[in-house]
């Protein structure tokens, strides 16, 4: 167990380093973006005079390293600052959106992970059968359409017929049940997008193991095909499966801006695009760090789970 704690500690440190690098990359990139916050806020009607006044007011006239340093020292003290555009604390701005994003990600995961594992296991069990080929072809088809397109088609069939709402309107008063109902279409869209990948990896990971001597041994012990796959193959295929699930969960958190736009879902992706468009650098940084942290943490969790489920790593000689 101490090994695991050591690994977690080491990975967390590395994760912090990653976050630091990302904050530099993002800051550098936003610096390179043409235009600045003042320009974006005033839009077409900006004049040099008003721009200068607004820049002064927003503190955009400091040199870039100074602004980065100020931001960094703030973050190190746990203060992500205020949105320069709205003067609201970033924690407040991002908090609700983060909750929404996590809700949608978990919702989609709750649909897609069991589904893809089930399909993957069945495809491996009945490999080369009609079921296997059909599910594979369907999975491929579902990932080969752009996300927004999948979303529109779902809206056409499921929202225009009045079964589900075509957009998500979440307020503080929305009940959990309503949320589940309203967010069904975006969750389903995401499910269609990520299921294929997870299913194919699950199938491949299991089939990869079916040539192992211990699988043959299990069959020679008279175990049924289902038991062979579930009891003997799956536990050993967990590491790659966990990894691909983690990767897709990270995607569900960080990569869903298009689905957010289509379903008017107030998540972090849309907020980040807004912030990039408006050069609201503090917000961009905060969200980039949240995304990166989600990615790092999910990968870490995946590695820890892979370790825990692997007796060779858990129980040393």
């Amino acid at each position: 167990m101490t090994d695991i704690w050591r690994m977690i500690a080491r990975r967390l440190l590395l994760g912090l380093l990653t976050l630091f690098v990302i904050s530099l990359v993002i800051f550098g990139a936003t610096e390179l973006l043409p235009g600045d916050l003042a320009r974006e806020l005033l839009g077409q009607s900006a004049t040099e005079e008003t721009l200068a006044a607004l820049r002064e007011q927003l503190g955009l006239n400091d040199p870039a390293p100074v602004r980065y340093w100020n931001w960094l020292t703030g973050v190190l003290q746990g203060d992500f600052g205020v949105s320069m555009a709205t003067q609201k604390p970033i924690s407040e701005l991002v908090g609700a959106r983060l909750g929404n994003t996590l809700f949608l990600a978990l919702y989609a995961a709750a649909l897609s992970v069991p589904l893809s594992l089930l399909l993957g296991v069945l495809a491996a069990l009945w490999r080369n059968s009609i079921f296997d080929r059909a599910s594979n072809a369907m999975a491929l088809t579902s990932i080969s359409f752009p996300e927004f397109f999948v979303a529109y088609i779902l809206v056409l069939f499921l929202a225009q017929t009045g079964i589900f709402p075509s957009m998500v309107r979440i307020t503080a008063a929305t009940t959990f049940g309503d949320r589940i109902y309203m967010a069904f279409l975006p969750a389903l869209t995401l499910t269609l997008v990520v299921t294929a990948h997870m299913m194919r990896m699950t199938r491949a990971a299991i089939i990869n193991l079916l040539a192992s001597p211990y699988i043959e041994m299990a069959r020679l012990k008279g175990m049924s095909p289902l038991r062979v796959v579930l009891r003997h193959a799956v536990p050993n295929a967990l590491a790659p499966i966990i990894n691909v699930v983690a990767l897709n969960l990270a995607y569900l958190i960080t990569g869903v801006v298009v689905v957010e736009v289509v379903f008017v879902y107030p998540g972090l992706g849309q907020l980040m695009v807004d912030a990039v468009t408006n050069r609201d650098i503090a917000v961009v940084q905060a969200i980039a760090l949240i995304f990166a942290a989600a990615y790092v943490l999910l990968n870490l969790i995946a590695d820890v789970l892979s370790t825990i489920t692997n007796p060779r790593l858990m129980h040393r000689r």
Partner: protein
Amino acid sequence: MTNLILPRGISRRGLLQGAAAIGAAGLILPAGARSAMAQAKKGGVFRIGLGHGSSTDSYDPGLWEQLYVQTFAAARVNYLVEIAADGTLVPELAESWSSADGITWAFAIRQGVTFHSGKTMTPDDVVASLNHHRGDASTSAVKPFFDPVTDIKVDGQNVIVTLNAPNADFPYLMSDYHIPVLPSADGKIDPNTSDGTGGYIVESYEPGVQATMNRNPNYWKADRAHFDQIIMLTILDPAARLNALMTGEVDLIDQVDPASISLLESRGVSRIISVSGNAHYVFPMDARAAPFNDNNVRLALKYAFDRQELVDKILAGHGSVSNDNPIGPANRYFHAEMEAKTYDPDKAKFHLKEAGLDTLEVTLSAANAAFSGAVDAAVLMSEKAAAAGITITVDRVPDDGYWDNVWMKKPFCASYWGGRPVEDQMFTTAYAAGAAWNESFWDNARFNELLVAARSELDDTKRREMYHEMQQLVSFEGSTIIPMYNNYVMAVANNVGTPEKISANWNLDGFRCVERWWFA
């Protein structure tokens, strides 16, 4: 000014007659009946889905710049004056205004109006609200409006504004959406307040997502603000907006994708409202830079594309051809008798030859940030120009940063104007030499001279002549291609009632759908 209400299946004439007959008979309107002529009914939750709005939107009026915040404001606040649906200037918080010389303007402020907070609105609040846009520290987009203002002071129930030069149209400027009257303390307004004197009180607001407002029970206008509640949503994706309207999740959407208009109409769940006004799409050319410094080149380009095709394909017919004229048919001094420019490759070639050229190669930078369909419009122009020996290379640039990197930086690009209620404002803003937003960098001595003269000319006929000459100059010597006036196209659920006349001043009935419209 025209007002086209295009109900599905029923001709406009038939509709008007039918509604009038019902009204005359004094019958109770059956549910779902057209209600254009009916009395506005109170009640209902009006849900608006707009293709604007960002998480960085703020309450600061100096920073308002798009339809969401503009309409959100129209629900919450009032202005000194209002542009009525017919384009005339009518009182709002100022009961009247007057000036003897066009330099000193007195606005008589209405009494007995209260803010949502319960505070009474006073002339001091008006002064503070105006001063928010003045001075070196001001970050307001309309600061230039106030540059000629030398003084603003309270005189009893009046507010006196003094200018440094006569301006006959100054009261019109006070209708600008940036300049609401907000509560003040110690001579300053709080730019981040949600308070106002308007018809609705903010219940919740999440920038870039949605706002919920409830009717102000103490609203001083008795015949306005009919809905119980207004919910404004940001729905950036055009298809999502259409879906929301078709599934009954919103009652009004803006920016209907021209391609979908006929399809939407055939669904029968909503009707299209298309309002023609002064808004226009433009392609400014940098008059200082070769080859655009030669008026023959500019004329060649003006004859080298098909304006009607742009109206048909980019606006799906919801607009009209413009003769490179920024002054629209809704303006008072619109010059309708100018020689019309049509697609004429021979004429374009002729002008090229005049400029000493056989062929011409130019790059047109466009992004849909300039206006919806700008890139397609550029492509269509490029296609047609080829016949005149003109190669227009369309450079699609990112939406992001368009106004910063392209507009007024690239010699030939796309842009738009919302139209201005008065000619002077339009010309001063975008065509006067040295004006901050003179996007074509055009500098015409005669035009500049006329502009100053017309501003203080009080004789209407003379003024009309001056403005006509100026339009002629812009059209045939100017450096801006203005192919079309674009209608404001919106779609509403069938049960939304609208006045017969819908303002062409700005989109969504001059932003005032929130207080002028009702549920039938």
